């Protein structure tokens, strides 16, 4: 096993750690900050972020992006994908990156359509 072959830089080389352990703590701090921001936004719900953008609230877009950022750092640093060969990286991430958005896209568009049909078709919400 390549013991000391850890890539110790995160944020595209902006932050370099001296040892793997330091990097772990660094990533923990980053993940905690992101989670805290999410929780604070979820409790405060700033009015400015409640406007809709591409059919979804800006706040929800922020949550979605922050979640993917967290997922990236968990996979890349905790699961050591950063240290794997390019071929393995690709074969793990690409199937998920292609299939999940595809599945979400078709199902959510379909659900939105069903919502419209029910919304326009029913006179009462309780019957």
């Amino acid at each position, binding site marked *: 096993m390549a013991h000391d072959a850890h890539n110790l830089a995160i944020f595209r080389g902006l932050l370099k750690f001296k040892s793997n352990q330091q990097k772990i703590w660094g990533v*923990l701090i980053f993940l*905690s900050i992101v*989670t805290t921001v999410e929780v604070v936004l979820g409790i405060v719900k700033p009015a400015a972020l409640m406007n809709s953008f591409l059919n979804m609230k800006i706040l929800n877009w922020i*949550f979605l992006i922050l979640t993917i950022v967290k997922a990236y750092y968990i996979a890349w640093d905790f699961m050591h994908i950063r240290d794997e060969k390019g071929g393995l990286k690709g074969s793990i991430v690409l*199937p998920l990156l292609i299939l*999940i958005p595809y599945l979400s896209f078709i199902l959510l568009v379909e659900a939105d359509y069903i*919502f419209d049909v029910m919304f326009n078709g029913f006179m009462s919400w309780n019957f």
Partner: protein
Amino acid sequence: MDLTAVENTEETNVWGGGERPLKSSYGKLMMWFFIVSDALTFSGFLVSYGFSRFKNMDSWPIADEVFTHFPFLHGVDAPMYYVALMTFVLIFSSVTMVLAVDAGHHMQKAKVTFYMLLTIIGGAIFVGSQAWEWKNFIKGEYGALETKGGQILQFVDASTGKRIAIADFAVEVPTKRDIHQASNGIWYDAGSSLPSFSVEEVVKGFEANNNLVIKSEKIDATGHKVILSRDESLDQIDTAVAVVEGANLVHNEYGNRLFADFFFFITGFHGFHVLSGVIINIIIFFNVIVGTYERRGHYEMIEKVGLYWHFVDLVWVFVFTFFYLV
């Protein structure tokens, strides 16, 4: 011994793990296979949750109004705090896991043991918290009425907008109920348990209390549940057919029953992963203590269970977002 197998060096190099595809061992690759397929299973669950939610976009329960409990703070409205705490516990147990993997690379048995123990404790706290969350969800807090169309009618104070429990206003109506007994029916068929109040009692109490109005499932443009006027409420309450207390797979006092179904299935499936992760971690923990990996010469097993453990954390990040935040 004469019977020792002759080692074919060339074969060992190609198939015995000597030459590893993608510089990754067999075990690690298989763990990745499992994780990718499991990730797709979870995506299937979460996307179908999204489907139901988009389909019922204007009546989906609001998570902040459902998960409001925090241990030892009774009656305090504390949405989000408890799950945030659970998230931190899980992330932290992920960190101790990476530290164990790192210590394993340096062959430090004592450190691996210590970090594995912390990871197990973190996982156990998380599973326990989830059980508590389930308990509150199943028990319910205020109770509600369900209409013939399957809609949930909740009750609020007209002046303050605060939720009122049905126990606070229902009046007692003396009724006679024949208890179904084994002696007068099918022997294995027991009478189903009744809710604490009958529909009639709740309706009577509602009519007597002028300050009560109904909160419907519908969401208005500002993202709040629509509260009916007193007259509309009196109209709607006649459509009620059942009293609902708490949530199960069939009835759900918080709103759309699909919400409860998906909550049970997705957090349950995730909780099952955490539970099995904890059990696997305990097995590995004892292996570390008895020195299995010391004799094997490497601690790669820690890395493999570590991958699984981080994956569980990764899934929780998404469950947290889609169930509690969005």
